[in-house]
């Protein structure tokens, strides 16, 4: 292979890695939007909290010693998911549920307030500076090409991100399509009022979507935290925006759409950063968002929305 194509391949690998974490966060947006039709603006903050909790647990367990690394990561993942879901649940209970049924603008403003609150809460509790974790997983699985021209590497970390994302997505898809709760979720997305009439506790289902979304965001928080190695209380804002873009790109309300959208966004971003000045990669994400909304507001896999009087 030529050098240029090797370079391209490397960018696609990097893009898929970042993209799969965007997809994980995007699911939280898309599920909530699918059921209650609001943008959970504080979702990026939940991802950030997930990152912090996993860093805390990893550092704590490593300091105690005597644990194998996979076990440490697994425990960190579980704790991060637990705590982030608790935050997700609480945010819904405190800031969104009392406002359900009122003007959309009111719920959105409340969500923005919650986002600012959480950001500053973590900044006050944990300090607003960058926190860096030494790389835990190093080495690469596969190396292509030769050192003197250009070498394509797939690191273990990237492979871990792919595998964890794949497992999570598969189990979520199975959960939504096979389980009773999953069926209830789909019913709620179809028609909330009717589902309620049929004897399903819709409040519980809505809470469940927030919990699932938060847990997935926490997984992304752990993975991206390990990948980049640096976190701060303000990472949630950008990540949330990117993930929202991914959700819109794939068609908001559709779970496979969010997965697809995340991957497309990740690859697009990586390619832009590779061939243009990298500062502009955030501009590309927003440019993409505006373009999709202009030409296909329903996204790639979304259903057109019918407005009823």
């Amino acid at each position, binding site marked *: 292979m030529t050098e240029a194509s090797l370079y391209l391949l490397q960018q696609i690998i990097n893009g898929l890695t970042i993209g799969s974490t965007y997809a994980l966060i995007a699911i939280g947006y898309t599920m909530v939007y699918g059921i209650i039709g609001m943008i959970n603006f504080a979702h990026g903050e939940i991802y950030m909290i997930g990152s912090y909790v996993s860093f805390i647990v990893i550092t704590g367990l490593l300091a105690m010693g005597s644990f194998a690394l996979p076990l440490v990561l697994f425990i960190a993942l579980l704790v991060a998911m637990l705590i982030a879901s608790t935050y997700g649940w609480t945010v819904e209970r405190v800031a969104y549920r009392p*406002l359900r049924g009122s003007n959309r603008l009111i719920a959105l*403003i409340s969500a923005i307030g919650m986002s600012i609150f959480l950001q500053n809460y973590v900044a006050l509790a944990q300090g607003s500076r960058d926190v860096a974790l030494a790389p835990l997983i190093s080495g690469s699985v596969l190396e292509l090409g030769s050192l003197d021209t250009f070498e394509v590497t797939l690191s273990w970390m990237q492979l871990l991100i792919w595998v964890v994302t794949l497992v999570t997505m598969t189990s979520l898809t199975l959960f939504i399509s096979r389980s009773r709760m999953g069926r209830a979720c789909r019913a709620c997305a179809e028609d909330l009022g009717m589902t309620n009439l049929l004897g399903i506790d819709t409040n519980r289902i809505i809470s469940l979507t927030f919990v699932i979304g938060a847990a997935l965001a926490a997984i992304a928080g752990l993975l991206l935290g390990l990948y980049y190695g640096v976190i701060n209380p303000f990472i949630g804002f950008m990540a949330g925006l990117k993930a929202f873009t991914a959700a819109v790109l794939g068609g908001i309300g559709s779970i496979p759409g969010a997965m697809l959208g995340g991957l497309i966004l990740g690859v697009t971003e990586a390619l832009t950063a590779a061939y243009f000045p990298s500062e502009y990669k955030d501009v590309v994400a927003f440019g993409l968002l505006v373009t999709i909304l202009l030409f296909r507001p329903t996204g790639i896999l979304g259903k057109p929305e019918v407005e009823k009087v």
Partner: protein
Amino acid sequence: MRGSLYNAIFAAGITLVLACLMLGVRLGAEGTTLAVTGAGADRWGWILAGVGVVFFGQLFANQVDALFGRIPKPNLSALKPQGSSWNTLKPWLLSALVVGLLVWPFMVSRGAVDLATLTLIYIMLGLGLNIVVGLAGLLDLGYVAFYAVGAYTYALLSEYFGFSFWMCLPIAALLAATFGFILGFPVLRLRGDYLAIVTLGFGEMIRILLNNWTSITGGPNGISGIEKPTLFGLEFSRRASEGNQTFHEFFGIDYSSGHKVIFLYLIAVLLVIIVIYLINRLMRMPIGRAWEALREDEIACRSLGLNRTVIKLSAFTLGASTAGFAGCFFAARQGFISPESFIFIESAIILAIVVLGGMGSQIGVILAAIVMTILPELAREFSDYRMLMFGLLMVVMMRWRPEGLVPMKRPHLELK
């Protein structure tokens, strides 16, 4: 009782889970590695106190609600005298207020006048965003972008072409309006929450662009040494630049740096009065009524033959031009601007002003802008908690008083 006991235990448990890792321990660098340290006993004391408050709050939730229900809601609009006496009194009161605003700066310190000028900038921004969010019901989260456009218009035009402040003022407003138009035209077809995110993205894009277009905007270093406004060509500096005269030479008085501060303040007062007057007229015009009608029910409006794109676009563009106005003045007052002044938090603060004041209510927005700029100055020792409080305030306001502190009043009849 048993139900609320379970509830209370559950809520207390949740609070403990929320607090234990985020507040109870702290992640910090220890040398080159990362370490986790437990928080001190006093912080755990606070956490347990918080858990206790949640427990008892939930346990006696009904009683607490009943207690709060008995407190009468503050009815600020009732303070306003009603009827014909108000109508005769109003022009007098207003002129007294204006005279007071004009005379006041000569009697107080420079710092106070400076703070007042800052407040006036926020009032302008709040009033502009109020058109977009309060009247037309379009949530604009990138409002600060138009503010930046205004500020950079003046800074760049004066730096490269030597334009004066007074020439730039209308240009800045026009350019910001153009940006609003270009952005608004495609996105205003979208539903409200999409619009919010797109405007947010637009705000970030403008900031990134300003940050990276180093050759023209100076990047993160910003632009400094922006010219101050002049009074019919009279400068407010110690020595006049070539071919100009200074204010103190012309009037034969001693030079004082306070003159400039007061002059800037007076310009701000003038601009705010113009903005208030214009918006007040607009609100009574068909277009103003159409904004509100569209906010209340889009489908009904369209079926009555209102062109929603034109109406939304006019609100969006007018709001943007107000921000351009404010931005131009901001650049002139600071003498230095950088992308740091135009971050998302600024947009959020302006939004908080509109929300707190009462969406659509001009007097409410003005009061809120005053409170929001002066309170942080008074409570400097709590400045770390400022944004935390803003966020909390937005949630609390939406939950208990979404109409704001001074809700907008429209002439209306009620069926009894």
